């Protein structure tokens, strides 16, 4: 499926026969996702997420602009998901491939259109000044799971990010320096997490119409090899409140409703675990920073 990479029949058949004997080539169980490694940077809103060999970096930034005329009470939130050839030469810099487009759309829907960020809280002066928050995603290394990793990176970034405090006095907006006033966090309404499943039909293509003899296999969090050879893919995006934000299944194998339910339940367990993990990491970082400040203040007073 990816341009420039040739997969041999041998590799495809080997993967299929491994799956048939209940084995993934990466040694994971069918329902076993990779545990994300989340690292927070020095600056607010700088997050690096590693999912196996996949590396995604999110940078959150905010600036003051004018709101859209038809939405004077809302701030702006943009996500950029341009994939450079750094992740892999399959991602052409001059032209967006279909795969890249699907990834962009899925991330956009998951974090922006699901209303994860409270846009109204970004309003400063209705109709004339608001915060514009942007999330820049940098894809450094590719081993599958870009959608899942992006979502974790952006949401962690939004939770970690602090924007400068502002005071409105009449028509003036005063932006306070970080040194001057403690910056304020963004109002995140919920944490959508994406979980991707890959489907394989190890039998002939003709036995696509399923009945009792359904030999279809589904696995959680496919790596690049599995992604390249898959017959179908499903991304479920939900939050800890069991609210499904997005289900994306673009073509591929048809799937029955029960499988979809099963996948959603599996996805919930994973999402709940990841959400707790994100919260814990952001909280730990915040605590560490605060300790630093208190220590600094005390040192000042001692003198």
């Amino acid at each position: 499926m990816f341009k420039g990479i040739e997969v041999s029949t041998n590799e495809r058949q080997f993967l299929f026969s491994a799956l048939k004997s209940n084995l993934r080539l990466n040694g994971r169980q069918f329902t076993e996702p990779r545990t994300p490694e989340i690292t927070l940077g020095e600056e607010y809103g700088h997050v690096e997420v590693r999912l196996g060999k996949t590396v995604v970096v999110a940078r959150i930034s905010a600036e003051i602009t004018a709101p859209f005329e038809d939405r004077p009470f809302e701030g702006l939130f943009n996500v950029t998901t341009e994939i450079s050839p750094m992740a892999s030469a399959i991602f052409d810099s001059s032209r967006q491939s279909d795969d890249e487009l699907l990834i962009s759309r899925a991330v956009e829907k998951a974090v922006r259109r699901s209303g994860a960020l409270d846009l109204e809280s970004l309003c400063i002066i209705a109709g004339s000044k608001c915060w514009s928050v942007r999330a820049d995603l940098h894809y450094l290394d590719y081993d599958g799971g870009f959608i899942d990793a992006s979502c974790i990176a952006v949401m962690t970034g939004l939770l970690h990010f602090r924007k400068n405090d502002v005071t409105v006095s009449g028509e003036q907006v005063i932006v306070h320096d970080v040194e001057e006033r403690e910056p304020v966090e963004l109002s995140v309404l919920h944490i959508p997490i994406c979980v991707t499943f890959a489907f394989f039909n190890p039998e002939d293509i003709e036995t696509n119409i399923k009945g009792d003899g359904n030999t279809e296999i589904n696995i959680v969090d496919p790596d690049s090899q599995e992604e390249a050879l898959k017959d179908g893919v499903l991304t479920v995006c939900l939050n800890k409140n069991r609210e499904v934000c997005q289900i994306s299944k673009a073509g591929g194998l048809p799937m029955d409703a029960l499988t979809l339910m099963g996948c959603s339940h599996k996805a919930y367990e994973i999402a709940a675990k990841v959400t707790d993990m994100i919260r814990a990491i952001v909280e730990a970082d915040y605590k560490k920073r605060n300790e630093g400040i208190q220590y600094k203040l005390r040192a000042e007073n001692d003198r």
Partner: protein
Amino acid sequence: MSEIEASTTLLNRVDGSAKLQIKSTQIICSVTGPIEPKSRQELPSTSSLSVIVRPDVGVTSTREKNLEEKIRVILNQAIAGELYPRQNIQVTLQILGAGESKNYTVKELTGMVNCSYLALIDAGVALRFSFGAQCFTIGHDDVLVVDPTGEDLKISKSSHVVVYDVKEGKVDQLLYADSLGSFTEEQVYEVLGKAIKEVEGIHAKFREIIQTKVEKDYVWQF
């Protein structure tokens, strides 16, 4: 001497990669090539070089285009392109931390040139010589600052980037120099002179980094 932290062979999907940090400037570079070029990139007797620079925050603009061109001019001198006719070498630079305001590009340019050297070595792309870059500022008090911080830049009267090639551990030729601001002819010579030692120092540091890389590559031999 600037404190450079760098490591190589970090990315799995490209032929060479390096990550480099000088103060708060952090760059990651990947090299893929020689690979099959697009037909418009193809050159009959030498390799073509495509450079992509991506900013840490915000969309890619003419600022990055200008940086790409500067890096292309520098790298094209170093790469022995005659060995790869009709092939393309793809260098992608991702800025992870700029370390300077958008009005300046000196720290990023310096970091990117140094980082791409390590990534090209990691990829095994043929180079005619080694090279290294250093940046400087001159303040309103006419004091020369080596490897300035973002704050130094803001209050500087002029800023300078110098790239030398290195042969046998010694600086040989001036590959590139870029100065902006307000400065005198003598200051140019001062910067160019001062840069010689700096680049030689950086090169010595690179040798250590590459030594580690080669040892890691051949770990199974020991």
